């Protein structure tokens, strides 16, 4: 007679059925959870590898936004006279606070967009949910974000900018930034497997998107009415605007914020569906 332990072990033997794919792919959330450690390791690898060979290493994560912020401050604020939109927030802090979520998004797109093709050797040799690959690239931008956030904190102390109580919403906007970044990355990475043109499109896309997002100018520069509605179709408008509101108390999110946030979720959901559908052919095509 089998002991309880043995019986438990026998019952644990999982049964797997492999069949041709039909119709809509399921999300496979349970399986994703099962592979969470792989997600962790790949994220860790992406971060480690990014800074391993650079002499200044992880310092770049702080230097990058500082340099951009200085250029913007001189160019847009001092020369072109772009302001922060509210008198008590210095332009340097204003633009730095915009750069943080923006950089998270931009870095995600450029690293996650090419991630599937870059990891072709994994895809053709080992099974795991393919979602892990772009997700780990997006999550891999978080350390950069945190370092940049540290710099911003110092900057705020220097300029004596005190955050309001809205700061409790900050994690929500970081999450929204991640969801948006992952949503777009899912599209780009899956498309890149099928069309190698994507590689050339990504830099343009990031550049154009940057100008359509209120990073170096305040949302108050956008005329009200239809222009503003169209402007908020950009999911990053809500992310950057909301991030700034939570931190600096500028321009509270209005009804148009919800339009932008809904766009984030839409892009994410559609990206997820498209990715899961295309996933079947990755190993055959890549």
């Amino acid at each position, binding site marked *: 007679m089998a002991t309880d332990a043995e019986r438990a072990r026998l019952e644990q033997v999982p*049964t797997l*059925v*492999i069949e041709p794919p039909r119709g809509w792919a399921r999300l496979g959330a349970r399986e994703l959870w099962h592979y969470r450690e792989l997600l962790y390791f790949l994220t860790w*690898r992406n971060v480690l590898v990014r800074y391993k060979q650079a002499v200044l290493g992880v310092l770049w994560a702080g230097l990058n936004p500082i340099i951009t912020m200085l250029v913007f401050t001189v160019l847009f604020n001092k020369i072109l006279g772009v302001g922060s939109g509210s008198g008590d927030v210095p332009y340097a802090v204003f633009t730095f606070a915009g750069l943080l979520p923006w950089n998270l998004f931009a870095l995600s797109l450029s690293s996650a967009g090419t991630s599937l093709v870059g990891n072709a050797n994994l895809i*053709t040799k080992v099974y795991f949910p393919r979602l892990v690959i772009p997700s780990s690239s997006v999550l891999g931008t978080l350390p950069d974000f945190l370092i940049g956030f540290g710099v911003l904190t110092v900057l705020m102390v220097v300029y004596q900018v005190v955050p309001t109580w809205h700061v409790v919403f900050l994690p929500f906007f970081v999450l929204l930034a991640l969801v948006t970044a992952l949503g777009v990355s899912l599209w780009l990475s899956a498309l890149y497997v099928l*069309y*190698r043109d994507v590689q050339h499109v990504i830099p343009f896309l990031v550049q154009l998107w940057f100008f359509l997002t209120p990073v170096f100018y305040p949302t108050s520069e956008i005329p009200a009415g239809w222009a503003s509605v169209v402007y908020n179709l950009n999911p990053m408008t809500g992310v950057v605007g909301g991030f700034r509101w939570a931190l600096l108390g500028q321009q509270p999110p209005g009804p148009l914020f919800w339009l932008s946030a809904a766009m984030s979720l839409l892009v994410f959901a559609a990206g997820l569906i498209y990715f899961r559908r295309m996933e079947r052919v990755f190993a055959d095509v890549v």
Partner: protein
Amino acid sequence: MSTAVNISGLGKRYLIGAQRERADNLRDAITNAATAPVRRLRHAGSSSGHVNELWALRGVNLKVETGQVLGVIGRNGAGKSTLLKILSRITQPTEGRIVINGRVGSLLEVGTGFHQELSGRENIYLNGAILGMTRAEIGRKFDDIVEFSEIAGFLETPVKRYSTGMFVRLAFAVAAHLEPEILLVDEVLSVGDLAFQRKCLGQMEAIAGSGRTVVFVSHNMTAVRSLCSRVVEIKAGHVVADGTADEIVKAYISNQTATGGAVLHLPQPLGRPEELLVTATRVIDEQGRPQGPFHSSRPIYVEIDVDVVRENDGYQVGFDLLSADGLILRTWHTDGPEADWPPLRAGRSTLRCELPAAFLNEGRYAVAPRADVYRTYWLVNGEDAIWFEVMKDHLESPFSLATGPGLVAPVLHWCGADDRAGDGKLTAVEEYRPSS
């Protein structure tokens, strides 16, 4: 006995023409989309159009019992790897159904996901996770893995500073500590030095011995015979033979005769066109005649024509000498004693190797060329063999003309007889031979 893997009616189709149609860049995709209605009109009636279908596998039915070690053999492109890829869920089948009972671990390549910039320690964790181990599991086996790999002193060194041998050993060590209930192995044991290969085979045998199910794809008939209890042969996407390892391997090898015959040339160059190609292999006698049967009393020469496209000091070219039932009697490489290293410079060279007189017995033998980059990967994996007949005419004894049993027939030398003087020393043959 329960069934670990049950495959029924499995098929995998690739669309060859569709690849072009499917458009590899956006411009084509847009053009295709725009012209699709027109094309649909033109091709009305012919549903499949001019897309070429290729069934890499079709109608495969296979049951693997729990604890069985199944060998899968077949020529390149027969569908073996596709089968493994479907079983390990890397690619999806077009038709059929597979039911697998148990956790599956697959080993289609060594060192998948290894990153050159990361240290040995970091790569152990990364690779372990990629192969499906949990962090706790890797932590528990970490010391064993390091010990197995024999690289303990280099754990903190980036893998890019490793020699190829160290890299392969580390990669194997991680893989060898996988503990799934069902292990799928593609030909990964074919690189690495022999002692290490043996260690890996030993580890695999231990896995098989502990009641795990193994599906093992290989060209190495000796490994297949020693590891597998059952072997199936796949040919053009179908299972064409199924039985005990001995029986299937023997039949498989004797069917390969087709590549040999009287003219002992290989039908097409083997290897990688950007690195090194083996363009011909001949078995000839002293006069350069490629015609058997060869006389065992005379030396027989193996000639391998090699085109070196890109020079690399790591090239090894050689051959397996096989017996009629597929046993490797000897593998011989250019990597012999140092004084003997033939130069492999860019261009065409012909390597000639002597099989000495009075070495082979009467019967059929095969020479299968091999080439590799030292401890890195195969260029030619010994799957194509040419066959030749040997007629034994060297004398072992003036009294017996019959051929004695044996895969080889070297003349051995007695160097001592029994202890006549009773002083514990053997008398040399010359001393006790009665003088006539």
